[in-house]
C-alpha cells in the first residue's frame, strides 16, 4: 500500500505542474482539436489524483500522511479550477487553503498528537456501515445528476479576469463580502478566547503556545 500512496502523491504533484502550466491559457477549442484532448487528459489526471488522495485519507491512519494527501487533493482541485478558467480562484485556493488552512491543521495535528496514539480505533462493523452509507449516497446523487437535463450554454473559455471578479465582489455581492469580514472577526476573537489556557489572563505569551 505504501508504494501506491507514494505514486499517487508524486502523480498529484506532477499533474499540478502540468495542469497549471497548461490550463491557464486554454487556447481556442475548435471541435476535437489537440487542445481539447489535452484538456481531457489533464481533467482525468487531476480527477484521479483528487479521488485517490481522498481515498488515501480514508485508508491511512497516520495523521501527517493525511495532511500530505489533503495537500495533493487541494492541489488537484486547484488544477481543476484552472481548467475551468477560474484562475483567480485556483490561486486563492492554493494560498488560503493549501498555504493557510493546511498549516493550521498541521498545527492541530502536532499539538494534539502523542506517539503511537494515531491508530485507527474504529471497530470492524463501523467501517462497513460507513461504506454502505456512502455508496448508497453516491448512487442517489448520480441518479439525480444523470437524468436531469442541465441547461448549459457553450461560452468562450476566456479565463475570468481579476477585475471582473473584483467588480462583482464590490457591486453585486457587497453584502456577503461585508458579512464574511464580520464573520472572520468573530471567528478570530472566538478562537483566541477558546485557546486561552484557563487561569491565565488574556496576555498569553506566544512563545509558550508554539
Amino acid at each position: 500500500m505504501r508504494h501506491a500512496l507514494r505514486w499517487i502523491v508524486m502523480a498529484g504533484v506532477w499533474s499540478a505542474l502540468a495542469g497549471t502550466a497548461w490550463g491557464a491559457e486554454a487556447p481556442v477549442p475548435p471541435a476535437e482539436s489537440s487542445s481539447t484532448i489535452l484538456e481531457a487528459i489533464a481533467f482525468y489526471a487531476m480527477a484521479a489524483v483528487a479521488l485517490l488522495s481522498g481515498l488515501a485519507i480514508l485508508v491511512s491512519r497516520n495523521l501527517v500522511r493525511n495532511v500530505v494527501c489533503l495537500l495533493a487533493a487541494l492541489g488537484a482541485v486547484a488544477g481543476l479550477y484552472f481548467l475551468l478558467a477560474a484562475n483567480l480562484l485556483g490561486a486563492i485556493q492554493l494560498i488560503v487553503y493549501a498555504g493557510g488552512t493546511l498549516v493550521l491543521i498541521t498545527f492541530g495535528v502536532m499539538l494534539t498528537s502523542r506517539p503511537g496514539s494515531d491508530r485507527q480505533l474504529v471497530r470492524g462493523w463501523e467501517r462497513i456501515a460507513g461504506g454502505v452509507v456512502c455508496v448508497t449516497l453516491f448512487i442517489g446523487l448520480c441518479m439525480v445528476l444523470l437524468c436531469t437535463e442541465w441547461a448549459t450554454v457553450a461560452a468562450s473559455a476566456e479565463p475570468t479576469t481579476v477585475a471582473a471578479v473584483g467588480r462583482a465582489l464590490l457591486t453585486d455581492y457587497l453584502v456577503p463580502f461585508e458579512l464574511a469580514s464580520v464573520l472572520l472577526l468573530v471567528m478570530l476573537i472566538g478562537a483566541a478566547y477558546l485557546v486561552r489556557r484557563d487561569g491565565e489572563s488574556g496576555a498569553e505569551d506566544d512563545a509558550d503556545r508554539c
Partner: protein
Amino acid sequence: MAKLTDKMVEGQPDLLADLDAETLATDDLLTEEMLVNMGPQHPSTHGVLRILLRTDGEVVREATPHIGYLHRCAEKIGENVAPFQFIPTTDRLDYLAAMNNNQTFSVAVEQLVGIEVPERAVTIRILMAELNRIASHLVSLGAYGLDMGAFTPFLYAFRERERIMDLFEAACGARLTYSYITIGGVTMDLPDGFTDACREFLEYLEPKIHEYNQLLSYNQIFIKRAGGVGVISAADAIAWGLTGPCLRASGVRWDLRRCMPYEGYEQYDFEVPIGLPQGGEPPVPPGVPQPRVPRGVVVGDCWSRYFVRVIEMYWSVHLVRQALDRLRPGEHKAKLPRSLKLPVGEIYFEGENPRGQLGFLVIGDGSPVPSRVKVRGPSFNNLSITSHVCRDCLLADVPAIVGSIDIVMGEVDR
C-alpha cells in the same frame, strides 16, 4: 531541585483517571514535555558536554548538565609523578590557557617548597600569562558570536589568535600545550626579536578590539539576544562559587591579581572591569575609545559576562606592555636539585585564570612525589549554575547562557 531521571517524570498531574482502560493501556507516558539531549555531540556545547533538557514546546522547564565525558583523572597522575612531570598535564586542564595553568601550578609548588624565582623569569611568566589570557578571551568571544548565529566574528577572533600563537611558537615551539612555564621559572629564555614582534602585535590588536565592538557587541540583534538573559545576582554568583569574568559580570569587583596578589602583580597598574548597568562606562586603559554599556543590558546577564572579557583584553594588552618594559636581562630559571624533595606539609593556592580561579591543593609527604594534588577547576563551578539559570528560559537561550559562562571541558572533567 527535583532530580530528573530518564524514567517517568514525577509530579505529572494524573489526567488519565476517568478514561477507560483500553486507551489507558496503550498510552503509558502522557506528557506534553519532551526530554531532549543537547550534546554530547552538539555544535553549541563547547566540547563534550551533554545537557538534558526537559522542554515544554520552546520553553525549557529544566536543564541538567551531565559531565564526565572528558574525565582523564589528572589528579591520579598528580599522585604518581614528580611536580615538574605534572606540568604537561596542567596544559591539558584548560587547553585554551595552558600558560596560566602552568603558572598557577608552578607558584603553588614553589610556595610549598619555598623556591626563589629570578626576576626575569617572573616577568616572562606574567608576559606569557597575559598574552594567553588575550588568546583565550578571543576564542570565547568568537565562539560566543557563533552561538548567536554570527559566523564572521569567529574568524576574525581566530585570525588575531594566530598572531599570538606565532609568538608562543617562537618562544616555546608549541601552539596549544606549551609546558613553557615550569617550577623555578621558565624552560627557555625568550628568543631575540620577541619583544619587538610582541609590541608590533599589541599595536595591531588594540584597534581591532574596538572594531569587534562595532561588529558584534553593539549589534542590536546581539544585544537583544544576550541582554537581560541568564541574569546571575552577586549573591548567587558567590554562593555557586563562580569566579573570574562570570563573578565580575555580576558586579563583584574581585580579581585575585589585585585582591590576593601573587607573582608581583601588585607592581603592575591595571583596573578590574565589572558588569555595569545601562549607560555605565567600564574603566579602559588610556588611548582607547571609551566603550559604553547599551540599553537593555542588566548587571549579571550574558552580555555583561561577554563584555567584561572584552574589557579584560584591553587591560591585558596594557599589562603585557608594562611587562615588556620591565624585562631585565638575568637568569630565566632557578637552580634546582635533580630530584626535588617535597617537604611534609600542604598548600592551597589559587591563580586568576581567564575563566576563573584555578586552585591547586598540593600535599607533600617528604618524597619527591606529592601524596595528593587536588585541582579546583573554575569552569567546574561556573557550569554548576546552568541548571539554576536555565530554568524556564527559551531553547535558544541555553546555548547563549552556556556560551556566556564560557566553559572548557578539560578543566570541568579533569
